[in-house]
């Protein structure tokens, strides 16, 4: 009975629930985003060392946070899907990868733009940027595997395994890269962890982080809804839905 509920019941329920949530999330995300951007780009004080160029931090730092967070969500959902054979968790895991890759890419690009005025070059083998680059490759691997496997169900399950293997490895990779960095270059300018960040800068940063999270949840739900429709296209309720529209 439980299995029946998981397998047949939830995708449909999820589809309608998510459909109702998406507009609300969109509005909330927009409000946070506008306020965060205004606060960060206009109201926050100018940095005495970096001038106005530090303001890219309000995009870069939340994006970097999201890149890791989404990978963990992906691995978590994948594990749930594998252990309890829950189709919905598989769908969530699969839908995470492209969003996570986009955030990782955003973090890399903004990090590189930020580096230009500071270091004078577009790319420096800084520990965090390097970790972020490897994370991007991990995401691309997940997406490549998902595209390569033809059967959707198998693809989702294989991807989940890879995501779990990746999540075990991420801390090790991160640690090793940091170690490598101190070994080869000596400590670079620690631009990312400002020890005492001004409260006027912290607030827009946190607001932006919330906005990014909301954005992630919204896009995730939208992607998952598409995936649900695709997977369940042979079922009665999807046919009724199509006929009704």
């Amino acid at each position, binding site marked *: 009975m439980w299995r029946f509920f998981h*397998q*047949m019941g939830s995708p449909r329920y999820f589809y309608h629930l998510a459909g109702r949530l998406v507009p609300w999330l969109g509005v909330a995300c927009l409000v946070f985003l506008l306020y965060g951007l205004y606060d960060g780009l206009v109201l926050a004080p100018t940095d005495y060392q970096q001038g106005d160029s530090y303001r890219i931090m309000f995009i870069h730092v939340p994006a970097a946070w999201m890149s890791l967070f989404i990978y963990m969500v992906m691995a978590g959902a994948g594990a749930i899907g594998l252990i309890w*054979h829950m189709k919905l968790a598989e769908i969530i895991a699969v839908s995470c990868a492209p969003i996570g890759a986009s955030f990782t890419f955003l973090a890399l690009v903004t990090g590189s733009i930020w580096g230009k005025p500071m270091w004078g070059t577009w790319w420096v083998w800084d520990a965090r940027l390097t970790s972020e680059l490897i994370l991007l490759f991990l995401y691309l691997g997940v997406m490549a595997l998902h595209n390569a496997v*033809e*059967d*959707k*169900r198998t693809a989702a399950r294989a991807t989940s395994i890879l995501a779990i293997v990746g999540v075990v490895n991420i801390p090790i990779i991160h640690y090793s890269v940091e170690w490598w960095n101190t070994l080869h270059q000596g400590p670079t300018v620690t631009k990312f962890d400002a020890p005492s960040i001004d409260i006027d800068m912290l607030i827009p940063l946190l607001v932006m982080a919330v906005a990014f999270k909301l954005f992630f949840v919204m896009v995730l739900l939208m992607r998952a809804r598409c995936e649900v429709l695709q997977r369940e*296209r*042979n079922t009665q309720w999807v046919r009724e839905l199509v006929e009704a529209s």
Partner: protein
Amino acid sequence: MTLNKPVTALEARELTCIRDDRTLFSGLSFRLQSSQALVVEGRNGSGKTSLLRTLCGMALPDAGDILWCGEDIFRLGADYHACTAYVGHRDGVKLDLTPLENLSFARSLGNPDPDCTAHQALEALQLAGFEDVPTRNLSAGQQRRLALARLLITRARLWILDEPFTSLDKHGIAIVEELAHKHLVNGGMLAVTSHHPVNLDPGATTRINLSE
């Protein structure tokens, strides 16, 4: 061992299999008991192989359950695999090993039957004399018989055979049918797909046609 349990049965409940968007079968239920055979029929691509792979426990059904002695086969795992033997499209024999090496390996990796050695199994499939020839040098029919010899060396109650008669001649088919018959008489079970008509006791045979 499950050999002495009162009810040994394979039961499928409302199985559904979807491959790449196509529903191959749905709501498929059957029950297979000692000394009974299941013959799965249907056109090419109707899901016969998928059904057998699901019965083996290799593929997950998209819905439904498969029970062995009343327990879910995916929960039983290794305990279920110890009771089954599978011969699929691909022979599962190493061409670079000799038939004897192949069988000894399969025997020790399975659940060995103390009453049947690798030599006896080769004899039963009329491969005696080929023990030490590299399998690569055997004919396709002989390689197929070697694959089928694997059925005898483990204590498998349930044989799952996917097109066992492929590349066998009339004589080879007769040998295999005889083995299947003996297996059923001894209380075994059989699930088989075949393009070739299978000669089994009609009273003990369930037929399922997946194309209908």
